[in-house]
């Protein structure tokens, strides 16, 4: 089970990607609109702009979904092979997870961080080669979509935890300096930011663990080895250890508040840097395309 690709054999370079490209550019545009609206909210404090920003983000998410589905059909394989595809998927998962969080916590202002972050990912994607590259049939398996989804959900959780950490640091700065103004009135309380940020990290950690397990199984099917000490795997391990340390510190010696926020920020920076470096240097997810 799993060795046989469920999809038709991958096509050659130059397969038609016109449709998904059109949707891709619409996605870029709608993310820009949403980001502008959220920034407008942060500066003018007009509640109406917060609503409009959210609607625009819902729109962006929808077009983003269409782009991914279109790409999937055009490529005939899971659309996460090139860096371009990977970035689009990352943005999509992050926004999707934001809406899930929103359902539970109603922290609409979080959108003001999610929108520009996703815009940044999507803009980077627009500078990357967009052609559809073939994926060696041996890599395509049932495990692949699960592995990818888990990995991105984990990363998106860490991204949200990072936004909460940022908000914590901003809010902490206002409260410590005793000069209230600007976004102080828009952001939630320190306790909430600390708590929800911690939850995001614990969910992210679970997802990352599962992603590493499914990745190992997938690797076993594709190459016959569970673990090969490739860049991606090494960086995943570092990431895993960092967040494990963070959670451990919180539960044992009470790393919370500002310290937790700073650590979460640092861990996220390591994660995002390794993500970019591996993809740019190695070309494509995991450098497996070479």
């Amino acid at each position: 089970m799993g060795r046989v690709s469920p999809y038709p054999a991958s096509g050659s370079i130059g397969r038609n990607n016109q449709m998904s490209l059109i949707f891709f550019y619409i996605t870029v545009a709608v993310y820009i609109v949403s980001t502008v609206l959220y920034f407008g909210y942060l500066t003018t404090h007009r509640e109406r702009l917060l609503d409009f920003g959210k609607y625009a983000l819902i729109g962006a998410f929808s077009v983003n979904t269409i782009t991914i589905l279109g790409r999937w059909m055009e490529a005939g394989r899971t659309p996460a092979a090139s860096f371009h595809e990977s970035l689009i998927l990352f943005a999509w998962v992050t926004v999707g997870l934001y809406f899930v969080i929103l359902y539970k916590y109603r922290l609409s202002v979080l959108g003001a961080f999610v929108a520009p972050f996703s815009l940044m990912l999507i803009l980077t994607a627009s500078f990357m080669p967009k052609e559809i590259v073939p994926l060696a049939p041996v890599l395509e398996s049932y495990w692949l979509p699960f592995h990818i989804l888990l990995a991105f959900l984990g990363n998106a959780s860490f991204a949200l935890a990072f936004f909460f950490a940022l908000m914590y640091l901003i809010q902490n700065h206002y409260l410590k300096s005793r000069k209230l103004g600007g976004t102080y009135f828009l952001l939630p309380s320190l306790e909430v930011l600390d708590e929800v940020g911690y939850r995001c990290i614990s969910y992210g950690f679970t997802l990352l663990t599962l992603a590493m397990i499914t990745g190992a199984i997938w690797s076993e099917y594709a190459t016959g080895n569970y673990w090969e000490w490739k860049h991606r795997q090494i960086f995943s391990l570092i990431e895993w250890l960092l967040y494990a340390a963070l959670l451990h510190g919180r539960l044992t010696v009470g790393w919370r508040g500002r310290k937790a926020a700073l650590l979460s920020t640092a861990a996220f920076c390591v994660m995002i840097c390794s993500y970019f470096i591996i993809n740019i240097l190695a070309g494509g997810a995991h450098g497996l395309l070479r």
Partner: protein
Amino acid sequence: MNLVIVGLNHKSATVEIREKLSYSDEILGDSLKALCGSYGVNECVILSTCNRVEISAVSSDIEKGVWEVKRFLAESSKIPLEELDEHLYVHKGQDAVRHLFRVAAGLDSMVVGEPQILGQVKDAYGNAVHFDTAGVVLNKLYHKTFSVAKRIRTETRIGAAAVSISFAAVELGKKIFGDITGKTVMLIGAGEMAELAARHFLNAGVREIMITNRTYERAVELSRTFNGTAIMLREFPHFLKEVDIVVASTASPKFIIKPEMVREVMRERKYAPMFFIDISVPRNIDPLVNNVDGSYVYDVDDLENVVNANLKERSKEAGEAETIIDEEIDVFYQWVKSLNVVPTIIALKNSFNDIRKSEMQKAFSMMNDDLTDKQRETIDAMTVAIIKKILHNPVQHLKREADTVDGDFYIEASRKLFDLSEELDKQKKAQNSED
């Protein structure tokens, strides 16, 4: 619509004038009845609070309405109108609607955004309903006003910012702890200010209050009123680790809470945040405590700054509230205009029909027996057709113009040209008896 609001408030008149004009509950009913009776106003509501007295009234003629309300105010306050007049503001038509929306939303209040005024406006309207002086226009206007005020409260944060020092402290606590219920407060020094702060925190739902004081008896006494725990002053550091919010207000000339102490406590609390409020002068809490991770120290000056920041934020919200008011005025005026044009058209048709009927009566009685039934029917049908044709264009134009800026002017002109006031009065009476 002939709506006017005449009145005075804290900006336009001193308290000496305002107190002469207040309408207490005992005389309110008679005053309302007098306005609608002997002063000849159609509908009226009297709003009387310590900061403002104003009357919204609907009359058949705007200028007459203004004059009658002014006369009423002068006569009931026993201040000569010449003297009173300089303190009065007058809002007419759309301007009056805007004014009422702003008042109810707290935008015209001394403390912008204060919530009490909405309740007072509701009471004022309730009284008018009770004494039967609110009619079609004011009913609709006040209901709209309440919904606008509610919308402004939910869509802007105009009421959210705290404006007194104790209240600001509670709000700060909420920004640090999120949920303040279940937190523990320690009062170090049991003075009046500390007591006030404690009351605010209790109202916000804190779980426990610990009280420590130089004279232990006073601490015990206060702990009884708040159902708290009294602690000896020399022992208070041992309890600090259980405390989330500290309110210091002793007369001690030196710092009684120092950074080393807080650092130690923080470790024991696993860095759960602490909020220190220092309302004593000279200060009791070393400002360096603020540098300890997770602890936030605010002295009296800092709290004053917080109050100012809150006020500034409120004025920003006020701008947003004004936008909502603009929108709602448009909605309201759509209704007002439709209200005006329909009765006008009906009155116009009725008055023409009345003329037709009376002239036909005269003609038929003169020609008495010379007409057959068939001929009578023909003449009747002809006159009906003539009136229909004559009125066709004016009615069409009235309907069309009602939605434009000059709508009121057209309606007013038709009423004057065809002398429709009697007809409209009849309609109003019919409608009132239906209600």
